[in-house]
């Protein structure tokens, strides 16, 4: 699904990712953890196609295609969706417009006709209900005046409607109270599917109690220095990151 090979990325001439390798297969759920400044956000940003990140070497392929050659919107249409750490407030753009335009863009890419209004509304209402969101939300501006929890629920709602092949969730748990975390996690878990992959970038082990990953990677100083199964998360919780970093240095 996603293949990152020897990825080196600089921001303003400072190298942040220093030869990162990562393979995500269909159906897998991965968690990328690591201390602050390890390069977690940079990795998400480069995969999503944000400006200001210079790839100096290496490659990222998505389903065999060169991801770095694709425009931001092409990545989304091909099935790669980023859940933002800080979802952007877009005053004046109603949620319903965004959802409709995004779904239409994806369907057009797949050669499908646009959904008729009643079908579209039915789909949206169903997903809203699942995320325990009121339908009045559709006519509110995207994320404007939303609480932290509402913003994150909105990110997952978009995923439920757009059904990406690969969902990349950047610190989806930050700023969530326990109730919101449960709703968000249920949303993400409902996306789990043999054909779909999920990558969570997170600072906290707490999220992994709710969305149990198949693989955990520790990112430190621009490289993945250790990978393991879910038991690695418990060890990190207990012992912190220092021992992994020391072990890798040896």
């Amino acid at each position, binding site marked *: 699904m996603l293949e990152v090979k020897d990825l080196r990325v600089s921001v303003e001439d400072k190298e942040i990712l220093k030869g990162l390798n990562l393979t995500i297969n269909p159906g897998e759920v991965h968690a990328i953890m690591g201390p602050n400044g390890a390069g977690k956000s940079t990795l998400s940003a480069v995969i999503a196609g944000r400006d200001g990140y210079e790839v100096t070497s290496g490659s990222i392929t998505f389903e065999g295609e060169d991801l770095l050659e694709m425009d931001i919107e092409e990545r989304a249409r091909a099935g790669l969706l980023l859940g933002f750490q800080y*979802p952007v407030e877009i005053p004046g753009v109603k949620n319903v417009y965004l959802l409709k*335009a995004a779904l239409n863009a994806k369907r057009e890419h797949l050669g499908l006709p646009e959904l008729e209004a009643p079908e579209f509304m039915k789909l949206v209402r169903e997903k809203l209900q699942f995320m325990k969101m009121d339908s009045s939300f559709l006519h509110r501006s995207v994320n404007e005046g939303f609480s932290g929890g509402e913003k994150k629920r909105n990110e997952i709602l978009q995923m439920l409607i757009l059904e990406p092949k690969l969902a990349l969730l950047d610190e989806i748990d930050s700023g969530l109270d326990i109730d919101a975390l449960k709703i968000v996690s249920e949303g993400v878990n409902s996306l789990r599917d043999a054909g779909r992959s999920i990558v969570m970038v997170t600072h906290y082990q707490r999220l992994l109690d709710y969305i149990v990953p198949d693989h955990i990677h520790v990112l430190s100083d621009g490289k993945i220095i250790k990978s393991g199964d879910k038991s690695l998360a418990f060890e990190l919780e207990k012992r912190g990151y220092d021992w992994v970093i020391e072990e890798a240095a040896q």
Partner: protein
Amino acid sequence: MSLAEFTDQWLSAIAPQISEGSGWLTDLRQGAVEQFATLGLPHARLENWKYTDVKALAKRQFSLPNGQADAVTLIKESSLGLDGIRLVFVDGIFSEQASTLNSLPQGVQVLPLAKNANAAKPLLGQVAAANFSGFTALNLAGWQDGVLIDLAANARLEQPVYLQFVATEQENPVLVQPRILIKAGTYAEATVVEHYAGADDAASLTNAVTEVELADGANITHYKLQQESSKQYHIASMHVQQQRDSRFTSHNVCLGGKLARQDIQVELNGEGAEVNLNGLYLGNARQHLDNHTLVNHNAPHTNSHEDYKGILNDRSRGVFNGRAVVHKNAQKIEAHQSNANLLLSDKAEIDTKPELEIYADDVKCSHGSTTGQLDENALFALRSRGLGEEMARGLLTLAFANEVIDRIEIPAVHDRIEDAVAGRLPEKFNLKGLV
């Protein structure tokens, strides 16, 4: 014939009709003709008309509208669907047949002006000075029809008064001069919608004047939606006088016209008076859209808030001048102005000038103008969901307009304006079917 010649001739033509029992009106018109003769059409040497050249008008041939054109389809298609209290004007002339004027609450009079000129005597020309500009003088000299909305003390109109002006296509361009008079007694409340639309090839000159008088505690909301054809000249001025604790809100949406000029002048004469001016202009092709506002804070504890936004595409040009004057002894006032513009093309242009003139010392004032770019973060967020770059730009451009449109409180008007704006944005934005 020139406008001056035209006005002279027109006045002599109708003089016999209006002089019968209405000597005051003839005198008023005659005085205005003299004002117009002195002022002439505004020219570029006047500070207020620096950017807007109306020379072309002086060379145009004009004839008088007769209001007899068949406009049934136009009226139907351009209607905002506000059917309760609706006055329709075809080329500026009241059409009784197309209008609905039933069930006015007690204390409310809504009268077509031509037939009820005498009722307008106490108000006509009282708020709008004839010498405000050559156009104001011309309107007072030669207004053909319009409306008098008279609200007694405490009268309250739940339904908006919908004034629908429809311009038809004429062989010779016509001069349409409506006069709208609104008089709100103490604590009276009403909403008035002034709407200008017409045939695609209508090429007349609309020269409208609106006068509004608010007594203590009165509350008037005024909507102006101008979507005349791209061949029309649209000149309009609105003059407002506010007494103590009154509140006036203006929503001014300017989409049409080859050349459009709107003046709004507000006099805050009593303590606690408040005015809100919201505006949106959207220019395409070679449209020239000019908005001039002036708020005089003549009394202490008065507030004004102004927010105008402009979107200019192609080779269109926008002009914004917002002036607030805080007069001596008008302490404890608040005056805030902002004007933001989006230029969608390299050849589009905006001349913007917010002005504050303050002669008191205890005031809270702010003003600013920006000519901006779209928010790059928002653009990225939309594209990251699969929206093409142009559509993302389109949605954000519409969102910019929506900051003004969303203040419109009548749902039918709100939706029509949003549709009209979306429909006038560049096609590459591909917003059709989405909004």
